[in-house]
């Protein structure tokens, strides 16, 4: 079978054991609880959800930066869960990550040339003079001048540091990047610069992205398709415009109306959800969203809804649409 997807994830699970004391019974947090998704070539899949819903865990499990509990990850035709460490290392050349906090994700004792140059050395791509040239050309791609080569992270602003983080990810010419909230530590005017940079790189280098963010406005701008996560599972997925203009899951609907819009002339009706963002250690039975759902019906608290295909790649897990 020919697979047109760059990445296919099936039934991915990651449970964290939170038991304290070794005589106690194991207590698991179901951070990611059976996720199916795929990312095509030159595709951008947005992943949204609130804190604790498992979006970062999912992103890292896909790269095997944390070891998934079970599931299947097919990347570029290879089963990531079955490859040995040597092969995994080689595959990592093709997949990279950009982290949220540009202040803590760069080693303060390493100069830019060391941080951005490290992937070249690890993967045996270049060293010495060639390395320096390569690093300079990558820095140019992300909008940093060559005089930043020998400077340390503290000499840069937040936006510039995020550029260094992006340069590090680009160093090995990856085909897939997990961007884990790359903008949330940045100011509004700097956010726009970084979004533009990511978009330029995406189109010019044809990189696929899994773009994790809690900021729906940014996701709408950048992603081809959107996935909405709630308590470790995907509740809705579809093409970006479809999700934003015609959301089918009550949670997606609530998320969309909750964003404060910078336009006082438009008065919208907000759906304000009751209750807190739930704890992944105590997952409710039935539909996971039912305790907060304003449209809950009879079977919601007992039976977990099946995934319904609404056509055009629009999937939703809700009894109302089943």
């Amino acid at each position: 079978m020919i697979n047109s997807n760059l990445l296919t994830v099936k039934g991915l699970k990651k449970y964290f054991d939170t038991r304290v004391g070794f005589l106690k019974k194991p207590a698991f947090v179901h951070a990611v609880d059976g996720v199916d998704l795929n990312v095509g070539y030159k595709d951008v899949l947005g992943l949204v959800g609130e804190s604790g819903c498992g979006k970062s865990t999912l992103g890292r499990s896909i790269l095997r930066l944390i070891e998934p509990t079970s599931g299947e990850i097919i990347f570029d035709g290879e089963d990531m869960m079955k490859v040995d460490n040597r092969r995994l290392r080689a595959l990592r050349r093709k997949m990279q990550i950009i982290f949220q906090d540009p202040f803590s994700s760069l080693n303060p004792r390493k100069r830019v040339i060391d941080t951005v140059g490290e992937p070249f050395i690890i993967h045996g791509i270049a060293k010495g003079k060639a390395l320096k040239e390569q690093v300079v050309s990558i820095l140019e791609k992300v909008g940093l001048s060559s005089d930043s080569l020998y400077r340390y992270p503290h000499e840069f602003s937040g936006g510039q540091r995020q550029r260094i983080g992006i340069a590090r990810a680009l160093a090995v010419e990856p085909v897939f990047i997990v961007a884990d909230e790359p903008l949330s530590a940045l100011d509004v005017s700097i956010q726009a610069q970084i979004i533009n940079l990511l978009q330029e790189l995406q189109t010019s280098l044809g990189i696929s992205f899994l773009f994790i963010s809690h900021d729906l406005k940014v996701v709408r701008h950048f992603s081809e398709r959107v996935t909405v996560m709630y308590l470790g599972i995907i509740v809705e997925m579809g093409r970006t415009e479809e999700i934003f203009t015609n959301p089918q899951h009550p949670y997606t609907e609530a998320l969309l109306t909750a964003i404060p819009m910078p336009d006082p002339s438009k008065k919208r009706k907000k759906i304000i959800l009751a209750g807190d963002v739930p704890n992944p250690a105590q997952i409710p039975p039935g539909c996971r969203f039912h305790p907060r759902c304003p449209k809950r019906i009879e079977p919601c608290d007992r039976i977990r809804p099946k995934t319904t295909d609404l056509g055009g790649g629009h999937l939703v897990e809700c009894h109302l649409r089943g």
Partner: protein
Amino acid sequence: METLLSVQDLKTYFYTGDGPIKAIDGLSFDLIKGTVFGLVGESGCGKSVTALSIMRILPPAGKTVSGKIIFKGDDLLGKTEVEMRGIRGGEISMIFQEPIASLNPIFTIGYQIEEAILSHLKVSKRESKKRVVELLKAVGMPSPEIRVKDYPHQLSGGMCQRVMIAMAMACEPSLIIADEPTTALDVTIQAQILDLLRKIREESGTSMIMITHDLGIIAEVADSVAVMYTGRIVESTDTKTIFRDPRHPYTIGLLDSLPKGKGEKLVAIPGMVPKPSELPEGCKFSTRCRYVIEECQSSEPPLKEIDTGHWVRCIRAGEIKRL
């Protein structure tokens, strides 16, 4: 139209090893009683320092060197520390960004709210306990009679922010300063808290200063707004006008930076906010402005009223329009 608070030419400097840093440099605004005044800007623009200056709780290195803060006819800068203690929490209270960090972890939430009541109002212990439960109920805390015995770590971020709001409301202040009250919260919880603040305002008529970096929040809650950049106001007017007809290039830049849908390249503001020690001569935004002309670099433009109640700090405000 009664003015509750009038800040006049406020200057707050921080004294560091490298000389004074002018965190706020000549800030003036009026807050009309019963309205919400929004202060918006990026990190380091001086919006939080403004709040701390009004409350007079600046860190040791910070000092308000000149200006007036007229609250109900009296200058707060002329008050003694003892008088200020009566005003803080009594007349003016504050809600901070990090609700969990702002509460004391070793006391129950009931105790902490009660402390705020007992230090300002002459009421009996029993009455104050009753009032605590009422307040928690008013801010939407489920089963408040039981929750009063909880410690902050037993509550979620959203619930802690409700406790902070209850504490701020405890003595029925005439002014609440909310400094990024929802920044640390999730979107759905943010919607709950903004809704709560709206209800409080409708029911008690409390005036508010809403400090935020999020123009969306300004659009939703503020009546009038001031945009800050490098310690000064660059534009101020009513909320509708700032979104419909922004005139300062920085305000226009901020609005253009926001993603609006699927689409083309965003119009980003180039460069970054200059360091306080490296502010340019003349207009402080001139280094990043796309409308800059030679005149901008020689002297700093004053805040000029281009239309009734619409103040802009730009010499080209008359000709610039957002496309």
